[in-house]
């Protein structure tokens, strides 16, 4: 058999032309245009005092408060009071732990139940209606129950975040597993894969792109639920700091909270995308 015979069957496959990659990088910078415009507008509005600084403190004030939040000296040790100056790391750590623990638990429970739904039609018929009903309950509706069950504080906060993060994982894992093409399973069996390894050799890799999308959605939701959870009377956490700041009328501290939420949310998604990139590359166009 001659290789020459085959040569014209082969098509070149390689990375796209360099100029399209450069253009893509240029396009990414576009994402900065709107934030910069917003920042400029914000600056003008507060500088001209179009809105009172009590309603909207200027970027400078907020930046100072942000620096204070993370690097200032701790000077408030009164019991029951939510500190601000220098308390940034502590609040952030509290929120991150709360969010991380609840999210991981949600991923675990969501994956197991989702796999069950995806692989077994019996489980699907049994659980689908009740799960869909529960999914429709707004997150805030769980708050009173969480408070009754877990009391004010940590337990209730974690329960709320868990519930918020659970559904996207569960739905994504369930759908993705149910949609694994039967042909892939058959090919693996025919090539000698034992049944007990199918989940690792076929179901998992085939479902991963969709699951990763679910994980990202779930992490973002978990992070948004942190503030709901922290309304349950915790005294540490970025959300707790924001509630306290609102009560004392420190609008710039409230805005600091918003900035921290946005930054951490963005960062967490970037990290998760980075970590999972190599599992989903094959499915990208």
């Amino acid at each position, binding site marked *: *058999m001659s*290789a020459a*015979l*085959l*040569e014209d*069957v*082969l*098509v070149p*496959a390689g990375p796209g032309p360099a100029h399209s990659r450069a253009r893509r990088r240029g396009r990414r910078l576009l994402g900065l245009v709107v934030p910069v415009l917003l920042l400029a507008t914000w600056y003008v509005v507060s500088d001209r005092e179009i809105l009172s600084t009590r309603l909207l403190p200027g970027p400078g004030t907020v930046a100072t408060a942000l620096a204070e939040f993370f690097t200032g000296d701790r000077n408030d040790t009164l019991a029951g009071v939510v500190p601000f100056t220098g308390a940034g790391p502590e609040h952030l750590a509290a929120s991150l732990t709360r969010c991380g623990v609840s999210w991981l638990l949600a991923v675990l429970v969501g994956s197991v139940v989702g796999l069950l739904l995806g692989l077994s039609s019996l489980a699907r018929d049994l659980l689908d209606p009740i799960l869909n009903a529960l999914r429709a309950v707004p997150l805030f509706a769980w708050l009173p129950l969480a408070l009754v069950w877990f009391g004010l504080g940590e337990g209730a906060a974690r329960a709320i975040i868990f519930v918020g993060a659970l559904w996207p994982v569960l739905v994504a894992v369930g759908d993705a597993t149910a949609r694994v093409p039967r*042909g*892939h399973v*058959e*090919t*693996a*069996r*025919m*090539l*000698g*894969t*034992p049944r007990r*390894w199918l989940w690792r*050799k*076929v179901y998992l*890799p*085939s479902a*991963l792109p969709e699951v990763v999308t679910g994980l990202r959605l779930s992490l973002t939701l978990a992070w948004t639920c942190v503030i709901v959870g922290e309304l349950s009377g915790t005294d540490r956490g970025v959300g707790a700091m924001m509630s306290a700041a609102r009560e004392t009328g420190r609008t710039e501290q409230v805005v600091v909270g918003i900035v921290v939420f946005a930054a951490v949310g963005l960062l967490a998604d970037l990290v998760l995308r980075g970590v999972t990139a190599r599992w989903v590359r*094959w*499915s990208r166009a």
Partner: protein
Amino acid sequence: MSGTGTGLLSARGLHKSFGDLSVLAGIDLEARPGQVLSVLGPSGCGKSTLLRVLAGFEAPTSGEVLLDGVRLSGPSADRGMVAQAGGLFPWLTLRDNLAFGPRASRRTGTQVTAVVDELLSATGLDGFADALPKQLSGGMRQRAAIAQVLANRPPVLLLDEPFGALDAQTRLRMHEWLRALLAERPTTVLLVTHDVEEALLLGDRLCLLSNRPACVVDELPVPFGADRGRAVLADAEFVRLKATVLERVLTA
């Protein structure tokens, strides 16, 4: 593992129905060791169903499948099947796709590498070892799918219209490629096709199926040697036989 049996695959009185729909109505056939049996039949008559039953993906409603006299049930590594849509895993590189079978049968790392390297060059895909299936052309993908199955050296190879989606010239090249590949590794092949020319070019024997529900209406030897190339297309005997078989398929 191959080498133990001789690779005689036989079907005895295979019936298959999906609910009220009878698809296979008593199929008897025999694919002989080291030979290519071409199975020809009209579209929708149940060719894919027959292969799926032979591969063990579907249980027959009645009848049995035997390999070297041993009754089979369920899929296993001794019957490699290339499905109509191709079987490569889209998330694995070509190299990992080819290594899938040997790894599943717990071959050692060096054995796996040796098998994969050999198949990469036999398919002319050396340069694409690290490409994903979607980066390959249709013809390359089909060659790779066949190589993936051959990596386990199965005694029996079941091919379901492996070249059906390719253009005529590419298909001819693939026929010569497959002949060369099989010459080096004697395998019992059952080739399902609706292309009479393909059936005659590749087959040692021919088996004609009727319309659904399918049964075997005729079986005939193909009177050309194992060394036939595409030159045989111009052979008067080939042309005559092709016309006869085509007529039989159309009136089956």
